């Protein structure tokens, strides 16, 4: 259960490939290094009369053209190959790792120097340089060549690690360690190295493979150990010369080489994969879309004039095969009305909003209940069907306006395209309409903004453009998910003014999802307070915020330092003990009871909804018998 106890090993061992690879590499490394002690034949021993044999009980992998035991030769040759590859790894990391640490630490000119130097080494033609070195030192010695190869490959290590180290250095805990007066070596070893060890392991495995590969290649060219000393590459060369006489001879060295490379790559893969997230969320699949029941394509004009622009009835949203994320949520909003959906993180308010617009993450589905848009249930519509109402009937803006805006295109491009698509305007008319929309969202210089790219806009400006984008289809319902959370408070007030004006001028309905009670008080007519996937209290804003009927609502108000604003600030805020329970621990009884100061035995019974406020509701077993103020609920 506790992730702390779940060490890396079990996860690692769950992958049979990884276990096999580990066993194989251990066999090759240990086996070949100790080979002279245990192999059945001396690698140079020629057995006259036993040439070119296929495997048999005496010669496990057969013999070569001089009757030498192939198995013994492979194992002995392995030692040289392993040592050579290890040398490459050590040299590459010996140069690349410290260089990356130094570059990241000093930055500026030091980093520029190392990086230019790395680029120069990268630009060198590796194989040509190695062959030139062979010319200088002779072709028998493999080790100097592998040192040189390690040097040539070190920029790759440097580059990969530099990026990682720089990103870790920006973490606040590194700053905290610096402020603790730790030496830079200690910071690098204790705080940065643990963060990059996975990458280091991946690189070690990959370079090890490269080292084996290059040695095989070189000895195939006749460089390295000379007859009678064996090497994998030379054995492959021999075999290829005799391929018509004894095709088998190619198999053992080739197979050993391939398996060793495979094993090292598999390990690199496992290291790289790291702690795969067990989020239980399935990747996106087109099948899911196709599998849904098809409703008739709506004819919007003919839709019955429903009293409610949007109505959710007993909506249940959940992760497929797992827990619920939204439980039995019912909401309604009329034209020209603003509904605030408020709650802390993990309460299901964003999931509720996303289910309306049909943008639930992969693996999350509407389980039951209905979503009535103008009286038509759109809960089980597919993408194609939803596209007929998205933009034109309802639109969505998110907390991060930059998500809605494509960084590759100008604002003009992004506004004009939907105007042409949804409203069927000509290009010139669409451009004129885009300018008008930007003016409507309060942009002072719309011509200039139209030509800008998203990154050239400030946060407040970008949110205005995102709102303009949402308005391109003249939607009757706007769903805004934390539209002001990322903004400064003065910009937030401006955006709220804008939304309020749009609702009044266009008669739109607005659903605003927020964690900020002040935003609700400012703009909303109705409010729904969510806790642990449920709407626990709903009603007119003034009723709910001034006379909360649910202990959670009153607790939230008491926890808000803005509540006493303009009056006297309390010495202590009324905090709620504990935290929102995770979705997989939700029960059918009151989910707030464990944190509630008023909870009694009755709160363990199945939760019931009761009518409260004007047309509102509350989910509290003790409703009617409690007197709530903003200070009397905490379990302090």
């Amino acid at each position, binding site marked *: 259960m506790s992730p702390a106890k779940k060490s890396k090993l079990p996860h690692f061992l769950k992958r049979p490939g990884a276990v096999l690879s580990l066993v194989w590499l251990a066999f090759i490394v240990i086996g070949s290094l100790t080979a002279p002690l245990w192999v059945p034949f001396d690698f140079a021993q020629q057995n006259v009369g036993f040439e070119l044999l296929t495997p048999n009980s005496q010669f496990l992998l057969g013999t070569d053209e001089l009757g030498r035991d192939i198995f013994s030769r492979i194992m002995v040759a392995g030692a040289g190959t392993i040592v050579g590859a290890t040398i490459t790894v050590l040299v590459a990391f010996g140069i690349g790792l410290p260089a990356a640490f130094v570059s990241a630490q000093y930055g500026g000119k030091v980093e520029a120097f190392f990086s230019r130097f790395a680029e120069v080494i990268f630009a060198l033609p590796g194989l040509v340089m190695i062959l030139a070195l062979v010319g200088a030192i002779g072709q028998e010695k493999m080790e100097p060549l592998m040192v040189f190869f390690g040097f040539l490959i070190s920029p790759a290590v440097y580059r990969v690690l530099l990026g990682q180290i720089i990103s870790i250095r920006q973490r606040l805990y590194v700053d905290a360690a610096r402020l603790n007066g730790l030496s830079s070596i200690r910071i690098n070893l204790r705080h940065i190295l643990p963060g990059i060890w996975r990458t280091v392991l991946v690189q070690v495995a990959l370079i090890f493979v490269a080292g084996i590969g290059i040695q095989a290649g070189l000895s195939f060219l006749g460089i390295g150990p000379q007859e009678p000393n064996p090497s994998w590459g030379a054995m492959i060369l021999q075999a290829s010369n005799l391929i018509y006489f004894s095709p088998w001879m190619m198999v053992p060295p080739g197979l050993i080489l391939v398996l060793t490379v495979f094993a090292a790559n598999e390990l690199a893969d496992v290291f790289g994969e790291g702690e795969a997230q067990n989020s239980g969320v399935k990747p996106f699949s087109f099948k899911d879309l196709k599998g849904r029941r098809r409703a008739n394509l709506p004819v919007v004009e003919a839709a019955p004039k429903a009293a409610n622009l949007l109505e959710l009835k007993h909506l249940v949203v959940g992760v497929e095969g797992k827990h619920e994320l939204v439980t039995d949520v019912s909401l309604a909003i009329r034209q020209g009305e603003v509904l605030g959906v408020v709650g*802390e993180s993990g309460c299901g308010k964003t999931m509720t909003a996303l289910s309306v617009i049909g943008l639930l993450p992969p693996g999350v589905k509407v389980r039951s209940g209905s979503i009535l848009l103008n009286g038509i249930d759109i809960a089980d519509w597919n993408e194609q069907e939803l596209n007929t109402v998205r933009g034109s009937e309802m639109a969505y803006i998110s907390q991060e306006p930059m998500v809605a805006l494509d960084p590759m295109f100008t604002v003009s491009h992004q506004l004009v395209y939907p105007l042409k698509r949804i409203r069927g305007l000509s290009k010139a008319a669409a451009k004129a309409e885009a300018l008008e929309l930007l003016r409507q969202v309060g942009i002072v210089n719309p011509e200039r903004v139209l030509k800008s790219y998203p990154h050239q806009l400030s946060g407040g400006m970008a949110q205005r453009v995102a709102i303009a984008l949402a308005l391109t289809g003249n939607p009757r319902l706007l769903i805004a998910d934390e539209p002001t959370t990322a903004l400064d408070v003065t910009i937030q007030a401006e955006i709220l003014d804008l939304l309020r004006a749009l609702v009044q001028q266009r008669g739109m309905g607005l659903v605003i999802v927020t964690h900020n009670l002040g935003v609700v008080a400012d703009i909303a007519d109705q409010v729904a307070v969510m806790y642990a996937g449920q709407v626990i209290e709903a009603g007119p804003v003034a009723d709910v915020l001034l006379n909360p009927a649910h202990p959670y609502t009153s607790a939230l108000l008491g926890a808000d330092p803005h509540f006493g604003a303009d009056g006297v600030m309390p010495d202590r805020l009324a905090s709620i003990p504990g935290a929102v329970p995770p979705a997989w621990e939700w029960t059918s009884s009151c989910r707030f009871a464990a944190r509630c100061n008023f909870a009694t035995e009755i709160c363990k019974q199945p939760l019931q909804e009761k009518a409260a406020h004007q047309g509102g509701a509350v989910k509290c077993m003790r409703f009617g018998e409690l007197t709530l103020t903003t200070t009397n609920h905490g379990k302090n």
Partner: protein
Amino acid sequence: MTNTTPLLEVTDLSVQYGKGKTAFTAVSDISFVIQPGQVLGLVGESGSGKSTIGKAILGLEKVKTGSIKFLGTDITHDSLKRRKKTAAGIRVVFQDPYSSLNPALTVGETLIEPLVVDGVKREDALALAREVLVKVGLSPEAADRYPRNFSGGQRQRIAIARALIVRPKLIVLDEPVSALDLSTQAQVLNLLADLSQSEDVGFLFIAHDLDVVRFLSDDVVVLYKGRVMEHGDVNRVVTAPKHPYTQTLTAAAPAPNPHVQKVRREAWQQLQVSKKQHVADIGQGCPFVARCPIAQENCATEIPALREVTGVKVSCHYA
């Protein structure tokens, strides 16, 4: 008032980013004093320079001009190494409780790090760590677990414990509750308020929210574009702001009480209407001139000096 040495004395502090033509002055001419055990709030929107000031005090940012004195010692240009001696009593709690704890170390290891560096024995340091964890409302066993086992609010308690363990005199709180949910935020704010009473420690509380600052602070400095707009007793500044910027800020913050919010919104809209006749900013005068509802011609050309108006310092020609 008293003759004790101030805990922190910042005088005419300026910090510049970059050099030459691309140089950008992040903060200019900032002065304030924190007395021992006092809480000073530093409030401003993004780009106001509030975090830059915090970093300069911690020695993470180079100071261009001005001075920073900690308990009477000038630490303005001390390296982090030298600060081990001169500013060991200054600690920090960062905004992001997720990236501020090393995921590879147990909470105990993180906490005892500064002590072990100073040569304290591991067991003694760990015992102290457990004590401090209790002080911030966690169980002593928390020391043996990893940061990933804790929620955002609990992590922020751990970050506070890490600051407290060396018995600091001053803790720089850089937006310590902005990333937290309302109910958790209240828990952490209460904890900080308790600690400021029970421990002999002063806070520099950096935040963007005036009401949050008001809850914890004695005095407040309101910043805009790297300059001090208003500086004084926090209750006075929040309930009767003198500077048009502070007025804008208080009117903009929405209150959950619908009655209070109605008044605030009207005040906000009043400020917006009168803003229409604004004076253009030519970069030589008051930084707030372009957004100011009461700006006059001279506001664009003369930087207003910080002057005392009914017990509060205000930098405005017309406050």
